[in-house]
């Protein structure tokens, strides 16, 4: 049995560095939160940071970087596509406020 490609990795030292980096991003998220930005800006900041974090986790922790590129190219576009299509529900969400039945 040959060693699978995924067995190759950068070693624990590197992962500890990534872990510290992730904790820093969490710290940034919290500090941004308490700067009391308008919700929309806060959301954008948090989402960007969350995607960054998630990307790092997928790439290094889940070893996607160390697999064949084909795996990443199969999985991620599918997920991104589905999530992108789900965004079609927002126009209705925004209409909800203006079209609510005014009961009082």
């Amino acid at each position, binding site marked *: 049995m040959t060693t699978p490609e995924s067995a190759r990795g950068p070693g624990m030292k590197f992962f500890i560095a990534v872990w510290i980096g992730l904790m820093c991003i969490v710290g940034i998220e919290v500090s941004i939160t308490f700067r009391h930005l308008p919700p929309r800006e806060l959301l954008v900041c948090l989402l960007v940071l969350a995607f960054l974090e998630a990307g790092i986790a997928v790439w290094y922790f889940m070893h996607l970087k160390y697999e064949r590129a084909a795996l990443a190219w199969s999985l991620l576009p599918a997920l991104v*596509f589905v999530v992108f299509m789900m965004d079609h529900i927002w126009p*209705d969400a925004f209409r*909800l406020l203006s079209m609510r039945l005014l009961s009082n």
Partner: protein
Amino acid sequence: MSEAAHQHGEPTGFIRKYIFSVDHKVIGLQYIGLGIVAVVIGMILSWLMRLHLGWSTLAIPGLEKLSPTGAPANVMTPEYYLSLMTMHGTLMVFFVLTNVPFAGFGNYFLPIQVGAPDMAFPRMNMMSFWVTFTAFLVLIAAFFVPGGPPLSGWTAYAPLSAVGESSGPGEGLGQTLWGLSIAIFCVAQLLGALNFIATTLDLRTKGMSLARMPFSTWAWFITSVIGLLAFAVLLPACILLVLDRVAGTSFFVPGGLVINDRMQPHTGGSPLLWQHLFWFFGHPEVYIAILPAIGIVSHILPAFLRKPLLGPRVLIGCLAAIGFLSYMVWGHHMFVSGMNPFSAILFSVPTLVITIPATIATLLWIGSVYGARIRFSCASLFCLGFISVFISGGISGFFLAQPSIDTYLHATYFVVAHFHFVMGVAAIFAMFAGIYFWLPKMVGRMMNETLGKIHFWLTFVGVYCIFMPMHYLGLAGNVRRYAAFTDDFLAPLVPVHQFITIAALITGAAQFIFLYNLVWSRFRGPKATENPWQATSLEWSTTSPPPFDNFGGRQLVVHQEPYLYGVEGSAGDYVMQTSPETVEAH
């Protein structure tokens, strides 16, 4: 995590062999068996519904025994009609159209067609069947609970499905069971899809490159990718719906509702949200039902045309394109739902674009029929019938894809005709073709061709008599999901409904010929040889039925494209995929 298929030997006990079996062939047959039970129930329900639509005051003897409150004095109440309609839709869509062509045939033949001894995860495979079976039992239980079976349709639009008993009969425990059943079903399908993907990618025998996989294998593979992503949305949606019903949340129920003069405790939810989640799953689900059917027909057809299909790569591309586009179009179910009208255009265009790959596939089939010498058997007749009903059902999609026309045709019998043709009848035809074609392999006996041909003609003419008039009813504005037609403009249309009912009764009765044929052939049919149809793919390179590990310990090596018909081969006018001979191009 990984279970090697060969680690467990052939089981001997009855329970391990036929009930809790890990053998993909037994599981496939279990799925098909479950599908047949579901389709018989669903068909009887449709008979009852059709009878009621034709003669709404008709007493149907014995109906009172089935449900004393649903049919007092054997006359169906409107709520019982709607309950039967809901159960018919749910059983057919989930337990027949998803189970048989995809899970049933897929389980049986996908490993064999790629030359694997079993699925990648046999125990998980067994689990997904029994989870499906649990879902089935939970759904059937809804018939017998107080309050009756659910009545809000297979789409279960909130808030009718979410506010509980106060919104009328059929919205009690039965609806909760419906939500649970579908959630359980989603889990089973997810497990199944994982298994199919892993099997297709990892267990192909030597020489079985992706390009050499049969159409059916490709279709099952693409379908499992669709299912993997689509059922993942329905699962939380059903859980949230059940939470709305039992835990008092208001995800799908807005505030200020007054039902039967009572204020509802819910506030702030959105009914459109349920529709979005449901149809986000629901439209891919349509292709989960039809893609395996397309794959099966494309697989069977060349064996009887004795020539390869035109453009095999193009056809597979079409399947993939349809699968891809299926995620972009769900909003066409919601043109009149109060959705943002701008979104309608956004959903309409990809919907129309889907017709391009569908048309290409159809033209490829028709073009392939040209210049062939067809061997007419039940399987090939059902394949040809499939092409015809697929065209008839697909054409009406042009109308419904356009929001401006959908404003008129939405929720009329035009829609009923459209989806029954393209999703129901087409997929059922593929199932029949599959059974006539593969039963010799599955049980080792041939089916009776004479009975089969009677069955085909009655079914083929029958479905046209049932569903073609429905298009015209829809154009005349006949609203669907009505228990009776009492409106001034609907009452004159009742004779057409009576005609349809009679056609449905006859067509339904013809299915018992099939069932009889199936049972008779299982025990009395002539013994099948290894390759009765002189077909080329791997399932015909093993005994009928195949041994426990599919190939009796042989490791097959694939040398050929899957559909080498009409060539000079050592065995005749065809060359098996496993045959090492060199073949000259036609």
